[in-house]
């Protein structure tokens, strides 16, 4: 089959481009260490969360911020139309320390995005989204629910406040 010289060149250049793109992703994963949200958070029946029966779940706790030996853990329930904690009181976390979020939903699918950052996860009923973030500086980040969750979706927001480690007071272990 006749393939024009220019077409061959273009074909080869396209393949190089594709491999280069894949290379950037691999670099992001092994260099800066960008990890994916995956299945590590486990599953939980939505009704367990809806009933507030947190003791029945082995991978979720009463919503709140916990200071543990391995770092800070934040348990968040995203529900129509608030983050708990996050909306009525901000989530306070320390700077310079790994913070692991565990987010789930008792009702519909929501989103959890710190606006303008790559802290971004879907919140799906039945699944616990688990992701670890290290905030380098003290700052305030708005939380946006970025998945349509009902007629009041646009009111669903919250805040993460990053404080100095000396000012951080986590909950009991």
């Amino acid at each position, binding site marked *: 089959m006749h393939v024009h010289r220019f077409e061959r060149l273009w074909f080869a250049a396209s393949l190089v481009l594709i491999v280069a793109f894949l290379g950037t992703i691999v670099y992001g994963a092994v260099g800066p260490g960008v990890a994916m949200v995956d299945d590590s958070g486990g599953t939980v029946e939505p009704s367990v969360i809806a009933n507030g029966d947190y003791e029945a779940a082995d991978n979720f706790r009463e919503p709140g911020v916990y200071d543990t030996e391995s770092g800070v853990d934040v348990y968040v329930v995203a529900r129509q139309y608030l983050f708990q904690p996050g909306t009525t009181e901000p989530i306070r976390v320390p700077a310079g320390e790994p913070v692991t979020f565990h987010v789930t939903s008792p009702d519909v699918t929501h989103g959890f995005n710190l606006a303008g950052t790559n802290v*971004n996860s879907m*919140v799906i009923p039945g699944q616990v989204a688990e992701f670890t973030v290290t905030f380098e500086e003290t700052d305030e980040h708005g939380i946006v629910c970025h998945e349509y969750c009902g007629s009041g979706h646009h009111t669903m927001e919250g805040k993460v406040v990053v404080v100095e480690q000396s000012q951080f007071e986590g909950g009991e272990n």
Partner: protein
Amino acid sequence: MATEHTDGTAFESDEEYVEVDDGTRRRRAFVDQFPDAARTARICLGIAFAAFGVGALFGLIQALHRTNALRIIPSSDYYTILTGHGVLLALVFTTFGIAGLFHWANTRSLGVAPTSRRLTQGWLWTMSIGTALAAGTILAGLVEEIPASADVLYTFYPPLAAHPLFYIGTALLIIGSWGAGLDWFLQYREWRQSNPDSRIPLQSFMVLTTMLMWYLCSTGVAIEVVVFLIPWSLGLISQVDPLLTRTLFWYFGHPVVYFWLLPAYVVWYTVLPKLAGGRLFSDPLARVTFILFLLLSTPVGFHHQYTDPGIASGYKLVAMTNTFFLLLPSLLTLFTVVASMEHGARQGGATGRLAWLKDLPWERPEFSGIALAGIMFAAGGFSGMINAGMNINYLIHNTIWVPGHFHLTVGTAYALTLMAVSYWLIPQITGKRLQFRGLAAIQPFVWFVGMVLMSNAMHRGGLAGIPRRTAEPQYEQVSFDAVVGTVGEMRVQIAIGGTLLFVGALLFLIVMAGTWLLGKPDSQLRVNGSLPEPLSGPEESPQVLDNLKLWTAIAVALVLLAYGVPIYDMLADGILAPGSPLIPV
């Protein structure tokens, strides 16, 4: 502007003429040769354009509402309008538009009329009833007295629930499209009986491979809707697994974008070179492109779920790798399209490294619209590469960047190509001359400028973290810091761009309605339907390219590799668990 171009000057000797009642003769058009197929194509395109008009109006309402330029509805109704916009444009305008275009393309290239009038009527009615049910249920959400609604957006993720009629209507639309595919395969079988050793004509090859991909991928959403959502919405099962159902949706949700796009590719490969005054560069590479789409379009759906919990990173990595290789057929297309246009311009005497660009027939909307759609698609391709990168995606997932991206792809590459080719095709399937040609000539440019304004602002808004799918992206606790420009300036561009796009849609609909109502049947058409042979024909290419069974088998195998284990994982803890009950909107 270039000098006056006539349509396909180089090929007019091939034309046939038909006698008209008054004794004069006129160019023979598709409608003379295949009146039934022309009628079916007209009905499909008519429904597509009607859906386009309503969807475009909804788009205008949204653009003005989101940016707080003008709010004529309460914000809770915004989501009804958004659902209507998504379903009417991304499902109805596309599916009917594609059916009309493919019905013409398959019939024209095979030279065989559709084989069964009953089958044609069957799929046409199934798709139409499905559309009426789905659209009716959505619009009922605007009327408080009617107890039905479907404010679930066009992705309809459970457990947000719509009225059962919405799911039934959507299922009928998809099942109807399967009947359309069967119609085209039966035409092919009839053609094959009298042409046992010939290569499949190019347009038909493209139609058939696209439909094979469509059968493979739409099975996912059909299972989601028929097995899970319809019984669940009727109360026959008490819960569904939100992760499993959204995975089935995205199994369909990425290839569906190629279902929208490939009809544009059919036009770019087979019609655009002729409109540019030349001929297609290479038939075999066009076939390779469509085969790659058949193989790679489906095992990529997890790239819409990079930020989903419950899915292992490895599955996402496989999807990403496939996605990047899916760039290859689009990059090949870029080469072929540009090379074919350049060839066309040089045939007309154009010279220079880039000077040939200005000698293309930009004054003719069928050309300018398709060419502008191609340019915008290149931009959309670049933002798509960002979407496809697993970790870069985290910055823009579910921000307004994403609709900024797909308004360049489905919203321009498909939509503007269909509008532009309609200026050329509608006369051939109606026998009527195009009316209001002056309006038609400016229409693609209005669309282009509107989309440049709206889309660039949406992309930049996404980088600032402004979410998509929200009535009021103005919060008390959240502020958005623009990387380039200001949030206020982005809002202005979105509002003006959205308004221009609506004007562009209106201009198109005026031209179409004018042609339908004012055009005289049996007119002397300005256009002809002959398509020149490619520079490199299919003869020297390997016969295996036409082996549709082989490519389908490989496509199925790739899907099993990409989806087998992940779906098994989701089913292992119970088909309906972890499960959610109905949550009405």
